[in-house]
């Protein structure tokens, strides 16, 4: 691989569906010293990035927020990559140059068009070699996503390497076997590995398991598009109001609200909250520091209006004062 890159920056595209475990996996890889000296670019579809808080302790992180790099923010991605390449070309020969970029896409991104954008750009094609597409697959939710979405399928189909994350939490062994067989059918060329909280674990043997029939593109196309909403938790919305509101929302609309993440300031500290559909992880307490993104929550979903979400939360806050 190194010989073929001819002095170009190797680029790893890390993709995967919303909440599949991309950042957790990447954090662990960086902690283990993989992708050493790589520049990490985080792309988030929402205006307010959260993942850089998670990867905070790592120095070389560039955030590309406010649009998905495979569609609206593709121009911005290309511009930023050109800047990085320019800066690199201007260095003296004895200075360390970036050899590797890891691009973590948003959960809504199809890595295919991103790689095409780089290959199709007359400048970048000489500087960057898209060397590998790694797609993280959620061991618990991926089968459901594949049944209802074409995006998950598109991500899996372009991968060079599939990492099945959260394998320790997948209790339904039969479903896991089916998922692995489905992955092998959708993308026979990819290597499949397993991970639990980011660390590599051995992959269960899925010989003989029957793959799941996956959604035809026409079925999913009838659904409304997925979008991100930013909710600001002002002083009237404390943790009690927010947790009551969100738990009700996830109970009633868990199939539409695909992902919630953000940092809430509470008396117990800064809580990093993350949910995937109806499943909410135990909030992680982050080190105490002021961050402009505290008390900002990102809700990714479909089938509702952003202003309804805000108004509903406000009305819950009003009820909380009653």
């Amino acid at each position: 691989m190194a010989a073929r890159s001819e002095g170009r920056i190797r680029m790893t595209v890390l993709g995967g569906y919303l909440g599949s475990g991309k950042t957790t996996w990447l954090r662990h890889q960086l902690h283990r010293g993989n992708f050493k000296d790589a520049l990490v670019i985080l792309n988030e579809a929402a205006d307010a990035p959260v993942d850089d808080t998670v990867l905070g302790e790592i120095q070389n992180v560039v955030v590309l927020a406010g649009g998905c790099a495979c569609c609206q923010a593709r121009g911005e991605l290309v511009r930023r990559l050109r800047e990085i390449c320019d800066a690199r070309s201007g260095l003296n020969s004895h200075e360390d140059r970036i050899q590797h970029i890891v691009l973590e896409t948003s959960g809504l991104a199809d890595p295919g068009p991103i790689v095409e954008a780089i290959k199709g750009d007359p400048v970048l094609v000489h500087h960057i070699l898209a060397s590998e597409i790694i797609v993280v697959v959620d061991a618990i939710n991926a089968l459901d996503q594949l049944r209802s979405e074409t995006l998950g399928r598109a991500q899996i189909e372009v991968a060079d390497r599939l990492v099945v994350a959260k394998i320790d939490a997948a209790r339904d062994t039969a479903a896991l076997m089916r998922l692995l067989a489905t992955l092998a059918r959708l993308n026979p060329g990819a290597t499949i590995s397993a991970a639990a909280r980011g660390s590599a674990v051995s992959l269960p043997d899925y010989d003989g398991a029957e793959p799941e029939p996956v959604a035809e593109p026409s079925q999913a196309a009838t659904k409304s598009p997925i979008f991100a909403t930013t909710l600001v938790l002002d002083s009237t919305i404390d943790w009690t109001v927010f947790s009551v509101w969100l738990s009700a929302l996830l109970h009633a609309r868990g199939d539409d609200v695909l992902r919630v993440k953000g940092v809430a300031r509470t008396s117990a500290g800064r809580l990093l909250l993350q949910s995937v559909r109806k499943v909410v992880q135990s909030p992680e307490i982050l080190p105490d520091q002021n961050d402009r993104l505290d008390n900002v929550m990102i809700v990714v979903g479909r089938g509702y209006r952003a202003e309804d979400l805000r108004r509903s939360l406000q009305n819950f806050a009003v009820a909380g004062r009653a």
Partner: protein
Amino acid sequence: MCANCGYPAAPGHWTDAGASDPGERMRARFRRARLLNTILRPYGLTAHDGGLIPGVQIATLSGRHEIARDLTEVWVAAERFAGAPVDPLDPRFVSAGSEAT
């Protein structure tokens, strides 16, 4: 674990994460029960947390009741009693008028 009240409570529902000490936790519980009561009233339901046992008691006006250990169980119980989920995106919660109340 007590079979009647579920004490000690199963640790760590995510909604319980926002309080740091026992006093804070108790205040948060009472506040939460008051808020739930306001939210559930239009559905003909009440919420009560006396602070003695873990969980919130959800009751109908006719007296059927159930103790919900955490907020996820609260919404499951409310849906069963009310016949439909309590949806924050229901027009009653998103109309501008209800903000004034």
